[in-house]
């Protein structure tokens, strides 16, 4: 079996309309993959940048997977939320990115989008906040039913991931 180490951090987010942001993240892999050590999901702290646009989290990701096959390569899913001064949390974006398969250090930008409701919903959202959320977040893992969605693009999440592969070349995998 081959092993995969993912060591990195969620650096922060930029390009969102408001500043007080936090991120819920998780790593999702296929059936042939097994997590040996590390936490595969988590939530960052709320960060309010004083200067500039980027909210920094520097949230560590340290995972050790082992696999019997190449299908179901791990994918990282993100949900960026906004917490306002009253303590309410509003969804600001869903994002999705594959973990890179080539070894080395990768600086990745994951773009995010948010579902939109009808124009009445949007008007209410402007005053009251809130907004539609996906009922089951499985939709962001696979793309099957996405064509029904009407969304709007939001900001970008920056990540830095270092990928270490072990024994993959023994089985003839080039990446």
């Amino acid at each position, binding site marked *: *079996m*081959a*092993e995969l180490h993912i060591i990195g951090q969620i650096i922060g987010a930029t390009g969102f309309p408001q500043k007080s942001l936090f991120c819920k993240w998780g790593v999702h892999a296929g059936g*042939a993959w*097994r997590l*040996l050590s590390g936490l595969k999901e988590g939530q960052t702290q709320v960060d309010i940048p004083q200067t500039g646009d980027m909210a920094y989290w520097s949230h560590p990701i340290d995972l050790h997977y*082992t*696999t*019997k*096959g*190449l*299908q179901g*390569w791990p*994918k990282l899913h993100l949900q960026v939320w906004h917490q306002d001064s009253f303590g309410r949390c509003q969804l600001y974006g*869903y*994002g*999705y*990115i*594959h973990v*890179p*398969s*080539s070894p080395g250090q*990768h600086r990745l930008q*994951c*773009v*995010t*989008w948010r579902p*939109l409701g009808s124009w009445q919903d949007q008007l209410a959202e402007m005053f009251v906040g809130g907004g539609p959320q996906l009922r089951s977040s499985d939709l962001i*893992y*696979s*793309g099957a039913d*996405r*064509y*029904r*969605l*009407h*969304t*709007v*693009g*939001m900001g970008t999440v920056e990540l830095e991931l270092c990928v270490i592969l072990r024994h993959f*070349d*023994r*089985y*003839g*995998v*080039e*990446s």
Partner: protein
Amino acid sequence: MADGWCTDTGESVYLTLPESSDAEELVVGWQEKFFSQYEVDLYQTESNCQTPLERQYHTEIMAMERSKRRQNQRIFTYTDFDRFSKWEEVTQSTPTFLAERMANVRHRRQERQSVVPKSRLITWEPSEEFIKNSHIINTPVQTMHIMGDLGPSGKLGLKENEYILCTIKADGNGVITIKPDFNNNRGAYRLETQGEKREVWRLYLENASSDIHAEEKEREQRMYRDLYTRHKDYLNSLVGQDFEMPPPGILRLIVNGEIVSAQGYEYDNLYVHFFLDLPNNWSSVPFHGLSGVTQTCRTSSEDVAFFSYPFSFETFFHKEDESDGSLPQWPVLYFKVLSLDFWQRYRTEGYGFLVIPSTPGYHRMTCRTWRPLQSGTVAELRRFFIGGAPELEDISYVRVPGTFKGKRLSRFGFRTQTTGSVTFTLNCIQHARAFIDASTLKKRRQTVLDQLGGHSQQGSVYNVLEAFQRARNRMQEARETLPRDLINTSAQLNSESSA
């Protein structure tokens, strides 16, 4: 006393005292309290004792006096419980607040493992005491000072004549700090007394503890090694040995990617419809889709629509026809960008294609798109008001049409307009059994050459090996063509000689 006068180039004159009955030997345990003459005098009177510690000293001293058992004269100790701070600067009459706090740091006791409670990470209203205590980082340290009363003999018991000989600090992690350090044949430390008679004392500190036995050290090393190998075996057992392999002679290509964004298009609410086109000799797993449609996304500022749409393809390449020496054609991803607006009008925004890269790894590519134009304004007006636009019947026309069989492709007369661009990120993985042999062969060759070493040798030895291999092959071929009887007679001869 007169003998032993010596002068040196310095200004002072010093005198060495002969070996006298002033020699003292004391064995001190950790945090074992020995009283100085000054302390004995001080704590004998009950009225001087205020704290419980001092009262305890008083009882001990009285017991000692009664039993007339006094071990030490000049050498005494200050343990962790005594309030003792070393005044570095003689000029300062009183130490600063911070110096005092630093010296008393060791008096604060902390729990063995101070677990930070998860529910209360932040103290929102710290008290004054808390603020004062938290200014200084403190690790729990136990200190002990070995002191010497260096006054002239007969006049012991004066506080001015106390000098620190050695300070030993031990903390919870097993770190022992000894100040000053062991001499290690570097020369003695000098202690100058400040009294009427300025005397110079030589201080030697030696590490008298015995080293660890060789066998114990060996045992410790073995234990560590066992621990590590056992952990490694445990991890190996979790991981296992099998891996899913493609059939021999087949290259498996796995593409994990995302459609990231689309930019620069005329209308809003874009979506991308794409599929992967496999040339000859390529096949894919049945029931696995090779196409997809993204969600409809409204552009934000700067006309960018974010899709963040993941896809994953798995295809197999099998070279059927070995004689055909052409390079394999790689799969192509065709896509079209469309817009859907509030009134349910569809418009094509662009067509594009992307050839899957032949090198494995991470690729981020931006593809530009165009859309076909019809001559005349009617089509454009229709597109603007009603929606709908000329579409390509065969999307592979974008690259090379599937029905094309000639030598020159001519697109003369086809009018298009450039529209925006779409960004993809791809992670390509290639998997084949052939790669195993190649990598191990490379490694084996490398080790032989490494052992021999040197570039000049490398070339020649490798040549020799190759020549030998060729000669061997030739001999085998020649042997096959030899007449049968020759081989038989030689075999008979061999068997006779061996028998």
